[in-house]
């Protein structure tokens, strides 16, 4: 009889499954709930992109691609990053096509972190950075961003977190779950702190296309930051391609080369069909992005003013597709609020506490859902808050 308690890796056993497991159990069992919980576009991938994948299958393109991904796709990624954000990456040795943005994050952390190295992670944020850092033997150092700063990372917060062991900073903006963005001036302040250090930046810019107002600025574009930045991007959020698992990691050739080794041994190459669709997305999909962005923006405004009318305090999120209102005025914890709201009104929103410290007292509402659903959710939220 094998004792699995002793055969399993200690670092894996130490990982928390999820802080809000019980809430998810309720959610899973409730079939007719309207979910504003899932952080994925409600749009189906535009047809011309799907069609390109189908066409590649018809032609019989079903084999592995090169490890780094199809060169035509890497050329398109390079052109796209230049066209949209003014960043230059050579397709030949600075870009890897990955299995979603998630794999890029994993590769970057594993390629950089030695045992005991610290990785600074602003929270509340997407849940993967801490566990991946731990699996790599590193130590996550969580920095709580504040609602009074609209959940931006400030230079002072960063400075306070840096120690001689700091290896990297994860910069996840526009932010899931807060919708916060970092503007050029914010990034310049961060750059000022990092300029004379050896600290690397893992910039998770998966939501770069979804900003409302000024265009997104990448930290790679701030003077002296390019050489220390690993840029993570992907197709999931911008082109509504979550299930295709298509992302990319870009950076200095010396770093990308090492990341490619891990990628090569762990997954060989990203899915071939998805890569062909991704070529179509990047060459002919700019209009799709813009149409979806405009729709998200309408939903964002409607949801934000609706929440404020209900009396929930909420800063204006200017990126991604989340609104992150404070529910402190209700006197409930964020898990209590979400469980009750789900049971009473059958609307799913996510407790802020799922996203780390600083998330308690907030809930994440995803507006990648129809205007109709958002209208219903607001009516029921009003009724729910009134009932408390």
């Amino acid at each position, binding site marked *: 009889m094998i004792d699995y308690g002793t055969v399993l890796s200690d670092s894996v056993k130490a990982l928390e499954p999820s802080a809000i497991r019980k809430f*998810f159990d309720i*959610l*899973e069992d409730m079939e007719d709930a309207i*979910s504003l*919980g*899932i*952080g*994925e576009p409600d749009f*189906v991938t535009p047809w011309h992109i799907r069609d390109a994948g189908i066409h590649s299958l018809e032609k019989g393109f079903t084999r592995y691609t090169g490890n780094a991904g199809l060169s035509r796709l890497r050329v398109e990624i390079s052109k796209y990053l230049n066209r949209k954000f003014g960043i230059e990456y050579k397709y030949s040795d600075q870009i890897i096509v990955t299995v979603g943005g998630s794999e890029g994050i994993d590769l970057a952390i594993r390629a950089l972190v030695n045992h005991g190295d610290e990785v600074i992670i602003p929270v509340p944020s997407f849940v993967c950075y801490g566990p991946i850092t731990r699996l790599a033997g590193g130590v996550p150092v969580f920095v709580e961003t504040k609602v009074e700063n609209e959940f931006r990372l400030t230079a002072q917060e960063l400075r306070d977190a840096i120690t001689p062991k700091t290896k990297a900073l994860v910069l996840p903006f526009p932010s*899931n779950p807060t919708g916060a963005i970092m503007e050029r001036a914010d990034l310049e302040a961060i750059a000022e702190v990092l300029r004379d250090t050896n600290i690397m930046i893992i910039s998770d810019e998966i939501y770069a296309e979804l900003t409302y107002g000024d265009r997104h600025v990448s930290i790679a574009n701030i003077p002296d930051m390019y050489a220390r930045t690993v840029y993570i991007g992907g197709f999931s959020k911008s082109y509504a391609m*979550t*299930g295709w698992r298509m992302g990319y990691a870009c950076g200095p050739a010396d770093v990308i080369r090492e990341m490619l080794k891990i990628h090569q041994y762990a997954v060989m190459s990203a899915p071939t069909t998805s890569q062909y669709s991704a070529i179509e997305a990047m060459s002919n999909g700019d209009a799709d992005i813009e149409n979806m962005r405009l729709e998200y923006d*309408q*939903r964002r*405004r*409607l949801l*934000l*003013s*609706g929440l404020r009318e209900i009396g929930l305090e909420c800063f204006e999120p200017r990126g991604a597709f989340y609104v992150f209102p404070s529910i402190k005025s209700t006197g409930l914890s964020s898990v209590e609020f979400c469980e009750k709201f789900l049971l009473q009104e059958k609307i799913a929103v*996510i407790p802020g506490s*799922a996203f780390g410290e600083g998330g308690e007292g907030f809930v994440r509402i995803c507006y990648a859902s129809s*205007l*109709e659903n958002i*209208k219903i959710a607001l009516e029921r939220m009003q009724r729910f808050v009134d009932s408390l």
Partner: protein
Amino acid sequence: MDEILKLLEKDGRMTPTQIAQATGQDETEVQETIRKYEADGTILKYTALINEDQVPAQHVTAMIELKISPQQGQGYDRIAQRIYQYNEVESLYLMTGSYDLLVTMTAKTMKDAAQFVYEHLAAIDGVTATATHFVMKKYKEKNCVLAKAPEQEERLYFV
């Protein structure tokens, strides 16, 4: 097209308040703009898009191509006017290509539709030929796919 019109075209039930919130405009301004659109005929009416397959009383939709010899000094307009006055006629377009006018109509039965064509449309002075096409199945109308889209079976419920 104006953002207000786009929103209303998609969902005619959106209130001025909701439209103001979604577009970031002032509510009274939105109200005023809608009133102006209604008055000047930009917004013709508010309707529901009905999936006829779900309605018990079935009927047929026909598209009828008409060839016309235009009348001196009147062009197509006079004949068009004589056609669109019929309640049976749902829409009427002047077309480029191998025929001139396209009529769409609904009728209780194919026989009723055919009767309308030969008794009324074909009988109009200047109509030189007709070709009637019956709709067998509607897949998409006004940007709305009529068949219920299948839901992906297993999905992640939290990202």
